[in-house]
């Protein structure tokens, strides 16, 4: 994998966030402040525009991700901006300056992303946040790779784990973010951030599986 992989990933993520924008906003309206779809869409649209400027080949995949992360921090605001921005920056730093990267590097990059999110947001799994989707995905990726799965299969498994984690947020009571103000009233709703997280991981899965 290389810079093009990352670029395709981010473009696909942007596309599906755009597509699911109103759905994400509605989820946020139920337990938040009705802007998550707008926030993520605004951010990833800016990312794609930004990547358009920096001409692909010359820039490595790591730099691409840190740039993308910085762009999210600078354009999203809200909780998801710093969180996803930090996630991508950490992932980018993990990839370093290499032109190419393999499955192990990808797994370490996602580990770093998760760490960044937890460091900044202090949320752990079960608090009804994006961590509930990202955590299982990162774990599953490592495990399936360790189990000898092919990269596409491992990433697909990671994506499915994130979906499961996303669905598992429904019965949870939020204890982080805006939704926590609802107390028990947050139970029964799917977390918007966990949902956008699966969209982003879904984009990664299809990008990777499309690689020759």
């Amino acid at each position, binding site marked *: 994998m290389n810079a093009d992989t990352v670029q395709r990933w981010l473009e696909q993520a942007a596309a599906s966030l755009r597509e699911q924008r*109103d759905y994400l*906003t509605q989820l946020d*309206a139920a337990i*938040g*402040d*009705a*802007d998550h779809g*707008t*926030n993520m869409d*605004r951010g990833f649209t800016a990312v794609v525009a930004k990547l358009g400027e920096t001409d692909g080949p010359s820039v490595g995949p790591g730099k691409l991700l840190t740039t993308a992360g910085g762009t999210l*921090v*600078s*354009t*999203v*605001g*809200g*909780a*998801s*901006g*710093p*969180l996803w921005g930090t996630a991508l920056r950490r992932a980018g730093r993990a990839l370093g300056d290499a032109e190419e990267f393999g499955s192990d590097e990808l797994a370490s990059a996602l580990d770093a992303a998760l760490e960044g999110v937890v460091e*900044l*947001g202090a949320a752990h799994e079960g608090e009804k946040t994006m961590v509930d989707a990202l955590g299982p995905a990162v774990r599953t990726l490592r495990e399936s790779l360790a189990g000898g799965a092919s990269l596409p299969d491992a990433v697909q498994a990671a994506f499915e784990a994130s979906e499961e984690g996303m669905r598992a947020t429904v019965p949870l*009571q939020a*204890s*982080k*973010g*805006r939704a*926590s*103000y*609802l*107390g028990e*009233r947050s139970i029964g709703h799917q977390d918007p951030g966990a949902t956008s997280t699966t969209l982003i991981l879904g984009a990664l899965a299809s990008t990777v599986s499309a690689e020759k």
Partner: protein
Amino acid sequence: MAIATQVMKKFINDPADVVKESLAGLAAAHPDLVRVDFENQIVVRKDAPTGKVAIISGGGSGHEPMHGGFVGAGMLDAACPGEVFTSPVPDQMLAATKAVDGGAGVVHIVKNYTGDVMNFKLAAELAEDEDIKVESVLTNDDVAVEDSLYTAGRRGVGITVLAEKIAGAKAEAGGSLAEVAAIARKVNDNGRSFGVAFTSAWTPSSPTPTFEIGADEMEFGVGIHGEPGRRREKVKPAAEIVAEMAEAILSDLDAPSGSNVLAFVNGLGGTPTIELYVIYNELAKQLAERGLTATRSLVGDYITSLEMAGASITLLKLDDELTQLWDAPVHTPALRWGR
């Protein structure tokens, strides 16, 4: 009529431009007080940087006049408005911090919302990288929220207005970075708020109002972004609503009989002045019953939730220091006296 509740009636153009256009209006209406840096989307005090400790604040838009309307002599040096109900990005706070720092350091007044906290945190780190001294002060006065391990903590609401005014006076009086931050924290520690909504705000970019609420219901304990409160219930007489609001605040704020307070009755955007004074009348009775005296008052729309019909009450326990700083001159678009 279902559709009736689904048509947005606002004085706006493209919803995507409402924040920038409103800021342009602020700049046009008050050229003597503020300038707006549109590239960074910040409102800066006309004569910044001054030598004194600077104070900035920021948060999602939709709460006007907070914060842009509080930029000026004796209050804020800059405000960082985000998109409607979305906290601003670190770039804005960094730009504002650099624009107002005169060397004495900059206080960041941050309302306790996850997004605001994280964005201000990143900004503070960036500012320190540029050798600007930053002190962050968190406001979290909304007693409608349980402050526990199971929440993001109490929301910052009405006390933020009072903290910005009083800290502004302290900075104007030559207070040090630590002193200005300390007085802002003192205001937050001695203040509590509670809000009630009759209707929902409607974010211009959203297809529907933030929340649905029955024709005869109110949200008791609402947040300024339409966050839910303690419960949904039927609308009832002002006397009962205010009695419960006062009880919620005063059972949490340690204000023994004989204390002086600043009584702040705030409109959330869609509730008219005539009702705010009906609320004040009921609040005065509640205070009297408890042996409290409102030696200072503030009544009006200062921290709103777009066009939400509703109101909040903030009580700040006063001592001589806070009272003097409150009385000190202030000259901003929304709050002005003494000059």
